């Protein structure tokens, strides 16, 4: 019979103050988890409102100005407050030092500071919402963003502040991975989740400052009219797009790489099998990180950039497909002749494979210059990035959350309800977004408040899908919260994992390990190590 250890990081020391001033990476991870899930809830409510408005053409629940603010906030909150921090700050903070066999991250105070900076950024964003809101779209394109009313400066300030949080997390993780690995853990004995977090951190460090300077220039443009992006003053609005996408395309990989890392953990554990192509998966993370800096111009094929530039960006964009494809093939090959355990985390891994493959393949249509002309700025793009971001990252986040939940909180959630939740989310997601691919090929532009009558049926189905999706998330929230008190104690290693976090108690003590761990086998050595699931 499994029990919860009497003293663990959750209950010792006690009190609100001990949480707000904690330097323990696990507690900071939990604080982050609560914060990003709050942001996800808010962004999700906005998403449902968008779909309600688009249920029929014309006005349903709000006017065009409100709608423009709502879709801007949906995008800005989901991207800057949920999905960019997402997996690294919540799951990564908790399990990265555990997986490395370390007592904490390299700079615990910087870690806590990054959470507070995140909260300050979120509060400034809230202030922006309530002091006039923002209707620029999350992309802040000039000259619209320098002309329109509302609290654009406050919102750019919020994103600027959040950038610091992101950089601090990145610095912390890189140094931790370099300096604090357990004895015996060579680079190629690191779990693949660590590899992906490392590649992510490098992008965070290198791309975020460029976003920072872009936002400074945008704010200056609005406050003092420096004229750099303002066509009326000899500036160039397309320059802003170059600046913006130089960050925001690599940012896409800040969002997806950690997700790929989670999947690389789930598939071998639940197949009870060595991962296929460990080195290929590790290297491909870096291949993706590197190429991600060279493809920003594929957002701008019809923006008036030169045809030569478009040609180069199109070619490089296709190259990024290869390392992503290699990963997908490796995961599939890992399943071959495995002993596949259909637990909830694995169901999410399957959802990821299914949805991310669609998301990736639809990228081919957008990387191809001639077809991109027709499809860009339509719902095809909306569907494409939701398949990658939500079908990819959110599914992996949920998979990771269900996988490490017993480690983080020591208790197991309801298996039956978690299966129902997974099924509803998978179904609802496809109903919502598969329809949007067709809306896009049929020519419905994105960011439309109302639409031509021919797009009516598909919009209706898409909105219905969003309700199924919402129901799935509500069920998931309920059984997870319920499990915190009522769940069965999970035991140290419920799934039969081989990485170091499963060698300590669930939940772990503040110092992580009773005795400093020494690595005796690789992260996926199911051929030599003897381990069995305990639930």
């Amino acid at each position, binding site marked *: 019979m499994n029990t919860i250890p009497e003293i663990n990081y959750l209950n010792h020391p006690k009190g609100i103050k001990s949480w707000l001033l904690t330097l323990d990476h696990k507690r900071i991870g939990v604080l982050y988890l609560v914060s990003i899930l709050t942001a996800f809830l808010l962004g999700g409510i906005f998403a449902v409102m968008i779909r309600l408005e688009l249920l029929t053409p014309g006005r349903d629940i709000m006017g*065009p*100005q409100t709608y*423009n603010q709502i879709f801007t906030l949906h995008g800005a909150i989901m991207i800057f407050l949920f999905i960019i921090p997402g997996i690294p700050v919540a799951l990564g903070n908790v399990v990265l030092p555990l997986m490395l066999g370390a007592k904490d991250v390299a700079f615990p105070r910087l870690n806590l500071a990054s959470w507070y900076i995140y909260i300050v950024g979120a509060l400034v964003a809230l202030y922006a919402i309530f002091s006039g809101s923002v209707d620029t779209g999350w992309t802040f*394109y000039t000259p*619209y963003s320098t002309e329109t009313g509302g609290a654009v400066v406050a919102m750019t300030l919020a994103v600027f502040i959040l950038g610091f949080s992101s950089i601090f997390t990145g610095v912390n993780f890189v140094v931790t991975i370099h300096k604090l690995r357990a004895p015996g853990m060579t680079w190629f004995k690191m779990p693949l989740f660590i590899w992906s977090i490392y590649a992510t951190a490098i992008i965070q460090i290198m791309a975020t400052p460029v976003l920072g300077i872009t936002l400074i220039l945008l704010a200056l443009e609005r406050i003092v009219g420096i004229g750099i992006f303002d*066509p*009326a003053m000899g*500036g*160039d*609005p*397309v320059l802003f797009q170059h600046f913006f996408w130089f960050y925001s395309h690599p940012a896409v990989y800040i969002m997806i790489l950690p997700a790929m890392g989670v999947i690389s953990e789930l598939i071998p554990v639940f*197949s009870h*099998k*060595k991962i*296929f*192509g460990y080195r290929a998966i590790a290297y491909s993370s870096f291949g993706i990180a590197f190429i991600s800096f060279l493809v920003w111009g594929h957002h701008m094929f019809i*923006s*008036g950039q030169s*045809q030569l530039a*478009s040609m180069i960006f*199109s070619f490089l964009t*296709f190259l990024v497909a*290869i390392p992503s*494809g*290699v990963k*997908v093939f490796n995961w*599939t090959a890992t*399943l*071959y*002749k*495995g*002993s*596949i355990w*259909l637990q909830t985390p694995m169901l999410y891994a399957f959802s990821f*494979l*299914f949805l991310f*493959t669609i998301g990736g393949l639809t990228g*081919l*249509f957008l*990387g*191809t*210059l*001639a077809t*991109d*002309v*027709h499809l*860009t700025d339509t719902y095809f793009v909306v569907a494409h990035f939701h398949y990658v971001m939500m079908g990819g990252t959110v599914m992996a986040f949920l998979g990771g959350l269900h996988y490490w939940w017993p480690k983080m909180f020591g208790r197991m959630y309801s298996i039956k309800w978690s299966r129902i939740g997974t099924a509803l989310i998978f179904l609802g997601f496809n109903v919502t977004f598969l329809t949007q691919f067709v809306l896009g*090929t049929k*020519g*419905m*532009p*994105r*960011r*439309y*408040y109302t639409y*031509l009558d021919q797009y009516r049926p598909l919009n209706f189905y898409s909105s219905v899908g969003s309700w199924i999706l919402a129901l799935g998330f509500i069920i998931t929230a309920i059984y997870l919260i319920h499990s915190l008190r009522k769940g069965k104690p999970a035991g140290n290693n419920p799934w*039969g994992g081989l990485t170091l976090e499963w060698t300590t108690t669930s939940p772990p003590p503040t110092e992580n390990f009773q005795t400093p761990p020494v690595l005796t086998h690789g992260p996926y050595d199911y*051929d030599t190590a003897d381990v*069995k*699931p305990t639930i």
Partner: protein
Amino acid sequence: MDTTGTLIMPPAGSTIASEVDWLFYLILYISIFFFVLVVGAATYFFIKYRRRGEIAPTSQVDHNIKLEIVWTVIPLAIVIILFFLGFSLYMRMNIAPKDALEVKVTAQRWLWTFDYPTGINSVNELVVPAGKPIKLLMSSNDVIHSFFVPDFRVKMDVLPNRYTSVWFNAPYPGQHNIQCSEYCGKGHSEMLGIVKVVSDREYTEWLESAAGPGEGIDLESYGEQLFTSKRCVTCHTVDGSLNVGPSFLHLFGENVYLQGGSQVRADENYLRESILAPEAKVVDGFEPVMPTYQGLLKPRDIDALIAYIKSLGQEQGEQQ
């Protein structure tokens, strides 16, 4: 040529559309192949190797160089082919034939203006002869817009500080929607227009009639036509509900509250000024976003619009 569209593509209204569709379907079939390969295999493994009770002995093969080279090189070859196909078609889509008929397009919130070589212009209605290459030279008066005709498979951003262009050749008479596809504010989704593809003869006739508009119908009905065709309808309603701009219902003769606290009577001169210099007097509670119609409307057009607004204000006395 396909004029009704397929399940997933709109009708092909230009010569280039069927080529784009061919490439689109090629990528679609390649994608379906890879999707079935990966997800099909994964699904099969999930079913065949699912755990029944105890952990079954598993294969521990962790790499296979030949297989890994195959699944790297084949996709690489495919994407390089796609790149070349996409690029060569893209270049043809971008280089307009020399003899193309050139029309100047001006985008502003939230309407399209088309200036023809003969000196006439139209709003939100682009009339072109069938079977001739048309080149659009485009610029914006305010923010970035994007000119998108789904049936033609063409789209190009319209920028405030420089010219961009698209070209197309629509072989058959018919009508096609124009949609703005770069977010530009409140009226973005109603910044719509129509491309009317007509025969040579009809095109010549249209050029003539457009030069002397609205002959033979009374001012009120002509104004009602203009209300739609010049896209006043994007921002103003005639049923009293609020949109981007004030409603025209019961407007005429009413006292209007302006920004800054002053008042003005909505008479003919006020309406005329508001059409030609909209920023001069802005109604309280609205933003000064209306573009000027100076040069876009002929004197008779303005008379007609005022007459139409007048007709909407007739019952004012009875209402109160």
